C-alpha cells in the first residue's frame, strides 16, 4: 500500500484537516508523527483526554549545557489531530523524531517553530510575488482560507522551500532518523498503508530517504552517562504559545486559529469582531455601530481585493484597524511584521492582537503523571525539614540555613501558596542575616495544583525558579524597579549563575532604561553584591558582572544627555555618578569597562555649560577620581556664581570630597576667598546649597575643614566649637536676610543711613 507523507505546517488548522481526512480515508496500520521518540512509549499519556493546549516539556542537563524546550499542542495541531485520528482508526502511533535533548535540536526552545532562517530568502521572494507583508499572511492566503487542491498546493510550496534552501546537518540527522522509522513501519505494515505527519520542509527529503535502507526499527537514542533529563506533560496556554518570538515562533493568534478550526473563517471573523468590540467597550472606548459597519465593509472589500472566499486573519485585522483607529499610530501594525509588538501600540490595536491571541489555558487529565517538579519539591522540603509547617527562622550564614532559604524563595517565586517570608534582607545592601518564614501546615491540595502548573518551568525547584524569573524579567521591559527585584530574587533563590537568559534580559532592560537615579541604585546594590556578598554567594557572579557593565555603559550615555540650568542638586543623580565611579574603580579590570571612555565623558560633561551644575561638579569629580589632573581650584573658580557654586560643590563632594581635604589642591583657600568676597545677598543665595554640599562630609572631616579655615585666618580656638553654633544656621541666615530688608526699607524711607555692622 505504501506510505502517505503529509507535510504540514505546525499549528495549521488546514493541515490538521488534511491529516484527519487522510487518516480517515486510508485507515493506516501506522501513524508516524514528528515528535520526541523518547516520549513514544508514553504516547498513551497524550491521549488521556486533556484539554489542549498542552505541551511536552523536555529538559536536559549535563556538564556542558542545560536545555529546556517545549513541544506544544493545540486542538488544531496536525500532530495532535494525527494522534487522535490515528487512535480512532486503530492505527499504531509512533513519535519518530530525535529527542529534544539531542544536539540536532539544541538551538530550539519550541520544537514546532517554523519561521525559519534557512528558507527566509524563498519566502521573502514569495511574499513579494504575492504582494503580502510576511510569511504568516502568505500562509493564510495560500492555504487556510481556500481549501481546494490543498495537498497539491502544499506539495508545491514545500518543494519550493526545500529545493531552494539547503538543509543543515541538524536537519539531515533528524531526517535520516525519521526515515529509519518510516522504512521499518512500511516493512512491518505489509500491505496496509502508513501515514507520516511531519513538517513540510522535511517531506521531500523523507520521501527520498524512505526508498532505500534498512528496515529494522530504530532505537531511541539515550543521553550520555552523567546527564539527566526527561520529558513530561504540562498544561500550556495560548499566551505562552504566542509568546515565542522571532525564529522560535509558530503561527501567531492561536485563538483565531482555534475558532477557524472549530467553525471556519466566517464564524471566526464574526466571533472575533465581537470579542474585539467587547474588549474595547470594556475599556471605555467608543465603538459605534457606524464603526462596526465600516469595519465590516472594509473587511469585505479587503477579502475580495485579495481574492479570498472568506475573510482571512489579516483581512479581519486590517478592516478593524482602518475603521477603529482615528489617529496616527506610533508603531507599525504588529501583524505586518513578525516579532514582539511594542508595548506602546495603540490601545485598539493592542486589544485586537490580544483578542486574537486569546487566554485559553490547557488542563491535563487528572490521571496524568505529575511532573517531576512535584516530586523534587516534596523531596527538598522533606530533606530540609520544611514539610511540617509553622513559623521558622533561617540563618543565612549557615550552609543548611542558606539551602532552606533558597528552597523557600524558589517556591515563593513559583507562586506556590503557603510560603510567606515575614522578614529578611530587602536589598543586597542591608546586613540582615536572618529570615523569618511562615509555612502553612495543611495546604497540600492547592500546593499540589500550583506545583503541577509550575512543572512547566522545569523539573527541579532550581530550574523552575530560574525559568519563572526569566519570564518575569521578559515581561518587565525597561522597568528598572521590577528588573532590580527580579535580580534580587535571583540572588535569593541562588539562581544568579543559572541562566544566561536572565543576564541577557536584564541587560536589554537596562539598555532601554532612562531613569538615572534608578539605575544608580541598581548599580550600587549589584556592585555591592558582586564585590562582597559571600552570604548569598553572589561575589564575582558573571550575571551581576553583566549587569554592572550594562549599568555603567548606560549611565555614561544618560549622564551626558542631561540638560538644564541652575537647579537644586539632584541627590539620586549624584548617587548614580558615585556608583558609576565605584564600578569603574573596582570592577573596570575584571569586567573590561572602558575607563578612558568614561574619563572622556567626565571631562566633556564637566566642561558643558548646558549641563546642570551638580552634574558638572560630579563629572569633574568623576574625571579626577579616574586620574584626570584638572586643576580643582581653577574649576571651583569657574563655578563661582552664587546660584551655581553650592550645587556644583555638592556634585564634587559627592564624588571626590578628598579634594577639599587635600592641602595641595588649595580648594579650601579658593572657597574661603570666594565666600569672603561674596556680597551679602549673593552669600544668602548660595548658602542653602553650600550647606547641602558640605553635608557630604562626615563630622570628623568637617572638623578638619574648620581647623584648616581657622589656621588660614590665623584664628585660635576649638574647631569643634565652630561647628556647634548655638542657633540653627538657616535661622541665622533668615534673620540676617530679614534684617537687611528692614534696613533697606528704613533707608528708602530716609529714616536711617545704611548700617555699618558688617563684621561677622
Amino acid at each position, binding site marked *: 500500500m505504501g506510505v502517505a507523507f503529509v507535510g504540514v505546517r505546525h499549528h495549521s488548522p488546514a493541515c490538521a484537516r488534511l491529516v484527519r481526512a487522510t487518516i480517515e480515508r486510508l485507515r493506516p496500520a501506522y501513524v508516524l508523527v514528528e515528535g520526541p521518540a523518547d516520549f513514544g512509549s508514553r504516547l498513551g499519556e497524550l491521549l488521556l483526554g486533556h484539554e489542549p493546549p498542552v505541551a511536552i516539556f523536555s529538559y536536559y542537563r549535563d556538564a556542558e549545557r542545560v536545555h529546556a524546550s517545549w513541544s506544544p499542542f493545540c486542538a488544531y495541531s496536525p500532530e495532535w489531530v494525527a494522534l487522535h485520528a490515528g487512535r480512532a482508526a486503530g492505527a499504531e502511533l509512533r513519535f519518530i523524531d530525535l529527542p529534544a535533548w539531542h544536539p540536532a535540536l539544541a538551538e530550539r526552545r519550541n520544537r514546532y517553530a517554523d519561521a525559519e532562517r534557512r528558507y527566509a530568502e524563498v519566502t521573502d521572494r514569495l511574499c513579494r510575488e504575492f504582494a503580502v507583508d510576511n510569511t504568516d499572511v502568505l500562509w493564510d492566503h495560500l492555504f487556510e482560507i481556500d481549501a481546494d487542491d490543498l495537498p497539491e498546493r502544499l506539495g508545491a510550496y514545500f518543494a519550493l522551500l526545500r529545493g531552494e534552501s539547503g538543509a543543515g546537518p541538524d536537519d539531515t540527522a533528524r531526517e535520516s532518523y525519521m526515515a529509519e522509522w518510516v522504512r521499518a513501519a512500511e516493512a512491518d505494515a505489509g500491505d496496509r498503508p502508513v501515514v507520516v505527519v511531519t513538517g513540510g520542509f522535511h517531506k521531500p527529503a523523507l520521501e527520498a530517504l524512505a526508498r532505500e535502507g534498512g528496515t529494522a526499527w530504530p532505537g531511541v537514542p539515550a543521553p550520555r552517562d552523567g546527564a539527566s533529563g526527561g520529558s513530561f506533560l504540562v498544561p500550556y496556554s495560548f499566551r505562552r504559545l504566542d509568546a515565542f518570538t522571532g525564529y522560535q515562533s509558530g503561527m501567531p493568534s492561536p485563538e483565531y486559529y482555534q475558532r477557524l478550526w472549530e467553525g471556519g473563517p466566517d464564524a471566526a471573523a464574526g466571533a472575533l469582531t465581537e470579542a474585539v468590540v467587547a474588549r474595547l467597550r470594556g475599556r471605555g472606548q467608543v465603538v459605534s455601530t457606524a464603526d462596526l459597519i465600516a469595519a465590516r465593509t*472594509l473587511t469585505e472589500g479587503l477579502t475580495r481585493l485579495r481574492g479570498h472566499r472568506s475573510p482571512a486573519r489579516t483581512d479581519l485585522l486590517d478592516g478593524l484597524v*482602518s475603521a477603529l483607529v482615528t489617529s496616527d499610530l506610533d508603531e507599525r501594525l504588529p501583524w505586518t511584521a513578525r516579532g514582539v509588538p511594542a508595548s506602546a501600540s495603540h490601545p485598539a490595536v493592542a486589544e485586537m492582537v490580544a483578542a486574537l491571541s486569546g487566554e485559553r489555558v490547557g488542563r491535563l487529565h487528572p490521571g496524568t503523571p505529575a511532573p517531576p517538579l512535584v516530586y523534587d519539591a516534596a523531596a527538598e522540603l522533606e530533606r530540609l525539614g520544611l514539610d511540617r509547617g509553622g513559623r521558622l527562622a533561617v540563618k543565612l550564614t549557615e550552609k543548611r540555613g542558606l539551602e532552606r532559604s533558597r528552597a523557600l524563595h524558589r517556591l515563593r517565586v513559583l507562586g506556590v501558596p503557603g510560603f510567606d517570608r515575614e522578614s529578611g534582607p530587602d536589598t543586597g545592601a542591608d546586613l540582615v542575616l536572618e529570615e523569618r518564614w511562615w509555612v502553612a501546615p495543611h495546604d497540600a491540595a492547592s500546593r499540589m495544583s500550583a506545583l503541577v502548573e509550575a512543572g512547566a518551568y522545569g523539573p527541579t525547584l532550581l530550574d523552575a525558579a530560574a525559568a519563572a524569573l526569566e519570564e518575569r524579567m521578559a515581561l518587565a521591559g525597561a522597568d528598572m524597579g521590577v528588573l532590580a527585584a527580579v535580580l534580587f530574587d535571583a540572588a535569593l533563590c541562588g539562581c544568579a549563575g543559572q541562566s544566561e537568559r536572565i543576564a541577557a534580559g536584564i541587560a536589554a532592560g537596562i539598555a532601554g532604561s532612562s531613569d538615572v537615579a534608578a539605575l544608580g541604585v541598581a548599580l550600587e546594590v549589584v556592585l555591592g553584591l558582586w564585590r562582597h556578598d559571600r552570604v548569598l554567594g553572589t561575589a564575582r557572579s558573571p550575571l551581576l558582572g553583566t549587569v554592572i557593565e550594562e549599568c555603567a555603559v548606560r549611565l555614561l550615555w544618560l549622564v551626558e544627555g542631561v540638560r538644564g540650568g541652575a537647579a537644586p542638586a539632584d541627590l539620586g543623580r549624584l548617587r548614580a555618578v558615585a556608583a558609576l565611579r565605584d564600578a569603574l574603580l573596582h570592577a573596570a579590570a575584571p569586567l573590561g569597562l572602558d575607563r578612558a571612555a568614561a574619563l572622556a565623558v567626565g571631562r*566633556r560633561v564637566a566642561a558643558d555649560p548646558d549641563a546642570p551644575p551638580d552634574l558638572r561638579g560630579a563629572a569633574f569629580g568623576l574625571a579626577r577620581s579616574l586620574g584626570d589632573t584638572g586643576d580643582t581650584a581653577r574649576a571651583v573658580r569657574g563655578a563661582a556664581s552664587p546660584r551655581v557654586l553650592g550645587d556644583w560643590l555638592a556634585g564634587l563632594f559627592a564624588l571626590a570630597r578628598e579634594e577639599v581635604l587635600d592641602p595641595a589642591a588649595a580648594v579650601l583657600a579658593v572657597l574661603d576667598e570666594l565666600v569672603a568676597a561674596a556680597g551679602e545677598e549673593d552669600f544668602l543665595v548660595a548658602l542653602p546649597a553650600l550647606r547641602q554640599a558640605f553635608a557630604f562630609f562626615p563630622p570628623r572631616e568637617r572638623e578638619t575643614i574648620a581647623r584648616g579655615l581657622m589656621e588660614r585666618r590665623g584664628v585660635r580656638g576649638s574647631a569643634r566649637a565652630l561647628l556647634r553654633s548655638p542657633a540653627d544656621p538657616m535661622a541665622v541666615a533668615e534673620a540676617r536676610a530679614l534684617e537687611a530688608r528692614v534696613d533697606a526699607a528704613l533707608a528708602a524711607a530716609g529714616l536711617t543711613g545704611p548700617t555699618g555692622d558688617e563684621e561677622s
Partner: protein
Amino acid sequence: MTHDDTTDHQRPPAEVRFAGELERLRENDTGPRPPGWALSLTAARRFVVGDEALGVTRKFVGDTSLIDRALVTLATSRGLMLVGEPGTAKSLLSELVAAAVSGTSTLTIQGGAATTEDQIKYSWNYALLVSEGPSTRSLVPAPLLEGMAAGKVVRFEEITRCPLEVQDSLLSPLSDRVLAIPELAGPDAMVFAREGFNVIATANTRDRGVNEMSAALKRRFNFETVFPIADFATELELVEAEAGRLLERSGVGVAPRRDVLEVLVTTFRELRNATTEDGRTMDRLSSVMSTAEAVSVAHAVGVRGWFLRGEAGEAADIVACLAGTAAKDSPDDLTRLRRYLEQQAPRRDGEQWRALHAARHLLPG
C-alpha cells in the same frame, strides 16, 4: 515632502510618467471596477506594488497591506488620510493611488496657513462676474468642485496646516457628497458628487499632528499611518540606487561605497528610531531623519569625496555632511549627534565605524 524622483526638473504627474504601465494594466484588467474607477482594485494595487509580468515597476516600498486598506477605503464612503513622519513618501503614495484610481493625480489642493475655501471649492472670474453676474461661465472651479463633478479623486496635501474652519469645508462634500453654490440658481446651485469622487488627504505628524483636526472631520476619514522603511536591506538598496543616480548626474565618476552607505543608513535608522540595533534607547532628534535625507547625505558624501579627493567618499565625509541634516532644527540635535558618535559608534565593529568615530571632531561647534 520630498520626492525621490528628480530625474527631470519638470516633473510630469504620475499618470504621464507611468502612462505605459497604466495602459498595460487597463488592457489586462479583468477585475470588476468600482463605479467611477479607471482601474479595478487589483489592477490599481498592482500599479503601486508592481507586477513583473506586465512590466509594472514597484513604486512604493512599504507594507502591501497598507495599499490594500487604502484602496478599499477609497471604494467606500470614507476619505483616506495618510499620516506619518515627513519623508515617508505619503505624497508620492497619494499621487500614485489617485493616478491609478482616477487616471489623474493633478486635482491637488496644497494645504497651508494661507489656504482659503476659494482654493478648495470654487472662485469667480471677476471680469465675467461683473459683466454677466454669477453663472457657470463666470464660475472658476477649484479641485474639490472639479473632482466632485467629474467623479475623480481629489488630493489634499498637508491638510493639518490649514486653519480648522478651512478644513471643515470638506465636511458636507465628504458626508453628503454634495457641494452647494448658493450664488447660482436652479440645478446649478447644487453639485452632486459623481461616482469615483473621494479625497486623499496627507498630514505630517511633525507639524501639528492630526490633533488639530475636528472630531467631525476625523470621523469621515480612515487613517493610515505611513512608516519609514522597516527593512534595513530595502532601505540600503533604495539609498544606494537613488544616491547612485544623483551622483551620476552630478558628474561623479564612481559609485558610492557599500560599507560607507551601510554606516550611513544604520546611523540614520538609529537616530530616527531613537534606538540602536541592540535595543539601547537614545534621545529622539527633532530633525527628520528620513530616507530622502539619507539619500541627500549619501549624494553629498559622494560629491565631497570625488571633487575634493577623487574617490568615492568615506565615513569622515558622513560626519561633515550629517551636521547640516541632523542639526537643522535645533542646536540640541548637534549635541545628540555628537553624543551618538562619541558613545555609540565605538561600540560597533568595522573599519568604517572606526573611521566615523575618529572623525567625530569634524562636527561643527
